[in-house]
């Protein structure tokens, strides 16, 4: 190799490094820009209403100058919880089946179908929820149940987060070395025991990442939620003596609050909607940070070797 061509290679190296860095930094810059802009617009609300009273008040009546978003935080939290409770077992089952159990030809049918779910626009999910799931949930014979509410919203959301969680989990399961599984079989474990005791624990950091991605998607979903959750600003509460009936209650999500009202909002009302955005931003940051901590801890625990 001549010194000249070595120098040329070095130049390519440094140019590429700079380009990659710009690409990486631009996403940081975009997050910062959005964050700063949202915060700037929210400042009048934080000054005029006060962050603490916004976060702890349950009443949201912009016409009467009441701007409490606690009910919306509860709504977002509960619908996300509901979607995780329904969606994660489904997605895990789907991923384990695809990665470990399914014959290749079946996997080749199931995998594209799951991926197709990710490509359906959320307004179509919302429409499906509105005309099929709402009447179905209304069939649960409980006074005060109208079909619109947290349960319907959780069901719609569970299907929406399923493809993300399933495909990331499948990748994680496939990246577990085959020798672990074979070793376990050689020691006399059955296939199910090997999957449960060896493969899933070995892939758990990947599985946790998958669930976190799903969580982020669930917290941010807007249009489909607006169409099926009822959008009433009320603190969700059980409508019968059974605490699970809280999921039949109507609610409003943080994202829905912004999307439903931003068109007409002016002044303090508009600023309060941006403040809702700031809270959502912080909530997602908290979720992500906690999850990253969990993943790190689980990796440190490692696989028994």
């Amino acid at each position, binding site marked *: 190799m001549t010194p000249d061509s070595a120098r040329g290679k070095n130049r390519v190296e440094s140019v590429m490094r700079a380009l990659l860095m710009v690409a990486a930094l631009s996403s940081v810059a975009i997050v910062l820009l959005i964050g700063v802009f949202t915060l700037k617009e929210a400042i009048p609300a934080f000054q005029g209403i006060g962050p603490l009273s916004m976060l702890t008040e349950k009443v949201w009546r912009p016409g009467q100058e009441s701007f409490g978003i606690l009910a919306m935080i509860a709504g977002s939290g509960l619908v996300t919880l509901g979607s995780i409770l329904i969606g994660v077992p489904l997605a895990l089952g789907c991923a384990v089946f695809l990665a470990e159990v399914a014959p290749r030809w079946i996997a080749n049918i199931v995998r594209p179908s799951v991926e197709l779910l990710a490509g359906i626009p959320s307004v179509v999910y919302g429409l499906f929820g509105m005309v099929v799931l709402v009447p179905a949930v*209304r069939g649960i014979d409980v006074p005060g149940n109208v*079909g619109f509410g947290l349960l319907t919203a959780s069901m719609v959301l569970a299907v929406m987060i399923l493809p993300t969680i399933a495909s990331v989990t499948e990748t994680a399961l496939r990246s577990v070395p085959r020798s672990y599984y074979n070793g376990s079989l050689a020691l006399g474990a059955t296939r199910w025991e090997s999957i449960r005791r060896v493969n899933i624990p070995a892939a758990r950091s990947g599985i946790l990442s998958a669930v976190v991605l799903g969580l982020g998607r669930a917290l941010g979903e807007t249009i489909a939620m607006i169409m099926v959750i009822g959008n*009433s600003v009320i603190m969700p509460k059980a409508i019968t003596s059974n605490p699970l009936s809280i999921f039949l209650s*109507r609610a409003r999500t943080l994202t829905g609050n912004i999307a439903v009202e931003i068109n*007409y909002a002016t002044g303090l009302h508009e600023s309060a909607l941006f403040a809702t955005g700031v809270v959502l931003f912080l909530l997602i940051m908290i979720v992500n940070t906690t999850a990253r901590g969990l993943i790190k801890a689980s990796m440190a625990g490692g696989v028994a070797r």
Partner: protein
Amino acid sequence: MMRKLALLAALVVAAGCGQQPGTAGEAGNGAPAGIRGEISVVGSTTVQPLAEVLAEAFETLNPGVTIIVSGGGSSVGVKSGADGTAHIGMCSRHVKESEFQESPNIMVHTVANDGIAIVVEPSVPVDGLTLLQCRDIFSGVITNWNEVGGPAMPIIVVSREEGSGTRGAFEELVLGDALMAESAILQPSNGAVRTTCSTTPGAVAYLSFGYLDSSVKTVAVDGALPTPENVAAGTYPVYRPLNMITDGQPGGIAGAWLEFILSDEGQAIVVAEHYLPVN
């Protein structure tokens, strides 16, 4: 862009004054003198479709004129009409006292009226309510149809979101000082309100006359069915003005267009678009 618009408007006004001071309106009736230029009209999404049709008709009569109509909501309409951001603001409710105080110069031109009907899911066997009962139903005081002569069936209130002009007008006309029931299902458009009301057993909602169809049942208020005739006769109480807002007396194209809207020709278009004429 704004400077260009302002310049154009100034030119138009100057031209109008040069020809026949103070009678720009005559040009609007298709007079050969001809007016040219561009104005912007901003505000209520309820008024917007009507304004677009009226703008198109006026542009056909005056080929040199362009009227740009865009949405934004009633509050935006009042604000941009008052501060001159737009030549004309649109507003589908009465102008509030606070808005008059903020900009005492504004002129309100009512160009049409729009009725708001109380509708129920078709299986609800209630055919009429009093205005007072409507208020109690939508504010959550009456919660069962058996309190207003129907069967024992919970009432499900469906409403528009806070800030909507239709909701604002409804609150002003029906609720008065009472507040909308917290448990109301809120939908962000007239279409979604209609779908929800038509499919939810026991539902009650309010809709602009333009959105009525056979999927929901209208109920009489104080004995009068929600029809344009009953509004005109003064027996149906729930209707609101569709307003155009200007900063002072409008001149030039804006003045000519408003005059056209209030002419017999303009009001015929209002009727054809299922709104109620002013006179």
